[in-house]
């Protein structure tokens, strides 16, 4: 077998890298302000990546590059959802960014590089590749947050994001180096084996674990490492916020799976306790603080923190049920958050950001359809059936109760109850209040269609969630090395 054909599992990443670099050059010659050619090329690249991922899929788990990279069902599923999410981000943000002069080649290329980072994270089984993927993603995002150069809030957000992100990367690296010191390897599977066979310096191992968990918590924005989330979500242009709040969560989930579950499974008794604290704090702080917000982007930021807490609950419950419920949760979460931020962009117009809660007043009278879509999204985020968000919560709670953590489950539903209040408030503003502005809402056909598909998908997945749940369960089952 030639070397090239063994690479087939990484074709999608290689293709994406080639295309991103080419588009960078092609874009120099695209002069029209809409950047139509670049945009079409990017979308085609995403579509081709999806095709390549599907076509190079192997029924078995394939390890590449000396066990640095893996191609399994979970990574394929997560990558497909990442392409979809990125593609949706681009559709939603096109006219929004165009009006603000930000729909540039750099934006699109950086998005592709961020996606490449995510894909590497999703498929990494070695601390080096994990870290490289994470940094590629993070650096692209830092740059994108600062894309709006003349905006003070965006610059401030970028600074905060960069400094805290660098700190988190530092923590993570420090933890990884300790684990290396304790086990003598950077390979995830080998670390797991080494720990199982007994490690001399147990303290070093646990210290390493603490740093790694802290780094992860920083990256996903779990309390008490969440300070950057509201500021970055608020400060960044909404299109970038949407990007940060969507696809990277899929990669973060894979990242947690690879490090904690594949690599540090023997230490589960240590890390599951840490995750429990992070989860409860995230749900508490996220949901309670969100009530006090008057800006929708900040509110969604705190809601993200709460959702990440719920995700961690799934992870700490362990087993196929726990991990697949967390995976299902994160996929549904990404779908909902895309819709939520998409709605903000849809209602924004030149020189006006519809990111304050009051901007949603009386939306039902201005556009009943958009209000209905937002209603579905909000009830889904609150976890009210018949929307997808309910099954996400149901499957996580099922795993939590199944693992015997009933008090945790009770806490989770109590915080969801608190969370329901601020989602209901959006519905209240849209349906019960009179509109403050009567400016007609100009909806672009592409993003208008997408928000409809997005909202209806949340509803349809709420009525027929079975397939996606099964896909997640099979993906986890076939991919993780559960001991």
């Amino acid at each position, binding site marked *: 077998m030639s070397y090239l054909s063994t690479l087939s599992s990484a074709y999608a990443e290689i293709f994406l890298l080639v295309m991103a670099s080419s588009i960078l050059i092609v874009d120099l010659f695209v002069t029209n302000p809409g950047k139509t050619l670049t945009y079409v090329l990017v979308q085609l690249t995403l579509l081709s990546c999806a095709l390549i991922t599907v076509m190079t899929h192997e029924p078995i788990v394939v390890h590449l590059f000396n066990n640095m990279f893996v191609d399994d069902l979970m990574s394929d599923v997560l990558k497909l959802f990442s392409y979809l999410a990125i593609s949706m981000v681009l559709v939603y943000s096109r006219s929004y960014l165009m009006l603000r002069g930000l729909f540039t080649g750099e934006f699109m290329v950086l998005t592709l590089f961020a996606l490449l980072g995510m894909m590497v994270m999703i498929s990494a089984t070695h601390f080096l590749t994990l870290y490289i993927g994470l940094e590629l993603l993070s650096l692209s995002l830092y740059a994108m947050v600062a894309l709006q150069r003349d905006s003070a809030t965006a610059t401030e957000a970028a600074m905060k994001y960069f400094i805290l992100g660098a700190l988190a990367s530092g923590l993570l690296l420090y933890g990884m180096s300790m684990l290396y010191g304790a086990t003598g390897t950077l390979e995830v599977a080998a670390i797991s084996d080494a720990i199982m066979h007994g490690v001399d310096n147990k303290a070093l191992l646990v210290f390493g674990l603490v740093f790694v968990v802290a780094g992860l918590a920083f990256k996903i924005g779990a309390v008490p490492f969440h300070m950057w989330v509201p500021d970055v979500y608020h400060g960044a242009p909404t299109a970038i916020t949407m990007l940060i709040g969507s696809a990277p969560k899929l990669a973060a989930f894979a990242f947690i799976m690879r490090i904690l579950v594949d690599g540090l499974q023997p230490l589960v008794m240590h890390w599951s306790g840490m995750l429990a604290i992070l989860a409860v704090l995230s749900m508490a702080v996220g949901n309670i603080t969100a009530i006090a917000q008057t800006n929708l982007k900040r509110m969604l930021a705190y809601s993200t923190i709460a959702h990440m807490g719920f995700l961690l609950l799934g992870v700490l419950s362990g087993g196929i049920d726990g991990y697949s419920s967390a995976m299902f949760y994160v996929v549904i979460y990404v779908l909902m958050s895309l819709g939520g931020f998409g709605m903000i962009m849809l209602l924004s117009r030149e020189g006006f950001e519809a990111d304050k809660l009051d901007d949603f007043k009386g939306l*039902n009278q201005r556009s009943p359809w958009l209000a209905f879509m937002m209603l579905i999204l909000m009830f889904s985020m609150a976890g009210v059936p*018949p929307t997808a968000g309910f099954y996400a919560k149901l499957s996580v709670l099922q795993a939590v109760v199944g693992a015997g953590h009933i008090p945790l489950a*009770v806490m989770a*539903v109590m915080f969801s109850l608190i969370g329901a209040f601020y989602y209901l408030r959006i519905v209240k503003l849209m349906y019960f209040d009179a509109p403050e502005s009567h400016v007609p809402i100009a909806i672009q056909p592409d993003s208008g269609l997408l928000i409809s598909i997005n909202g209806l998908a949340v509803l349809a997945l709420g009525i027929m969630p*079975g397939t996606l749940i099964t896909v997640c369960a099979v993906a986890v089952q076939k991919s993780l090395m559960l001991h």
Partner: protein
Amino acid sequence: MIFGFPLLSVAIWLPIIFGMLVLATGNDRNASLARVIALVGSILGFLVTIPLYLGFDKMTSAMQFVELRDWITHFNIHYHLGVDGISVLFVILNSFFTPLVVIAGWKVVEKRVAQYLAAFLIMSGLINGVFASLDAVLFYVFWEAMLIPMFIIIGVWGGSNRVYAAIKFFLYTFLGSVLMLIALLYLYIQSGGSFAILDYHQMSIPMTAQILVFIAFFMAFAVKVPMFPVHTWLPDAHVEAPTGGSVILAAIMLKVGAYGFIRFSMPIVPDASHYLAGMMIALSLIAVVYIGLVALAQTDMKKLVAYSSISHMGFVTLGFFIFNAYGMEGALLQMISHGFISGALFLCIGVLYDRMHTRNIADYGGVANKMPVFAAFFVLFAMANVGLPGTSGFVGEFMVIMGAVKVNFWYAFAAASILIFGAAYTLWMVKRVIFGAVANQNVAQLTDITMREKLIFIILALTVLIMGLYPLPFTEIMHTSVNDLLVHIARSKL
């Protein structure tokens, strides 16, 4: 299923589909089209439930018209529908009320008509789903989903303090439901991965777990019933809701909570039910006596009927937790009868409110002089609310009191006080609103009820009288199911 025709699915989905159609008529320019579609949909929705009654086998307590399909295979969740002699009555009752609500809002609601009617139709389908579900997750989905249209109904078409009432209503009931979800998940794990409610009925559960499960269910159902002390959302929701909303709340939604007790709490955790029966009876009697007294002090008609509802629902929970056939059947009859009566009373108040735009008792007086036909109906429903023999209100209350006497004289004694307090607050309201001299200029300008309103009241008056004089059609259908339920509850599941 008759001739393989999925009646229950039709009863659930037909109103929902019609609701979507109504929604599709768009803005208020097409209001009359929306009304017609809604009326057709609701009447069809009622007609399809009639074969449920006619085709029902009264000899068995097994589930009938069963539909079973895979839904979410990974969690072993099924689309599992079926009714027994208890739930079939509520499916019919619910479908019966939907056309009435559509007619009642015919001329009255003028803003966002399509959304208003669609919300009621969709809610009607969802409530049928609650009564027909035999899968715990399916039940929970319908149970929660019906909050959404009600939330919108109260919040958009309600009175001045509607936002507060809507959010209070939603969060209060959501609080109860989420705890029930934990209990259901616990049962799912304990049963080795089944969400079938009927499996839970057969499962043995240790006592501590039974008590915790009972409390979780209690949180969900007691809030809905509502039982003292978690009843405080109801007066707010009732007062602020538009007439149609109040009718559905009182006639149907409260029954959902009581239904939960007999479908979930009592058969799944019978030992805990017996163990905690004292508490349940105490809370029920407090509701009957104390809330009856509270009703006496109300100056707002809707609030008065709302408190009267809580007091009457106390009777229902009392009937359940004395564990005998009289109590149980009486409670079920009381649920149905109270549905008719409270629905009718709220419609009466709606008629007055549409004309006078006030619900204050003090603003009225001598309405009988100007609206004689209306006054006749109003007095009839008031008498039924008091429990006058010959009306439906009497049968249920009498049976529950008989059942209570068998258990403990003092239970019956306290429960019977409803006959006094109920008479006091209802008749006092009637006296101040209907009788006497014409109180003021506004009353003097009142016009009597229209044909549309008459039609609704005639239907309801006939049902109230028929049920009062000849309750057999109602009792015979539930008889076998109730007896089996009592036998089942008497067996320990430890």
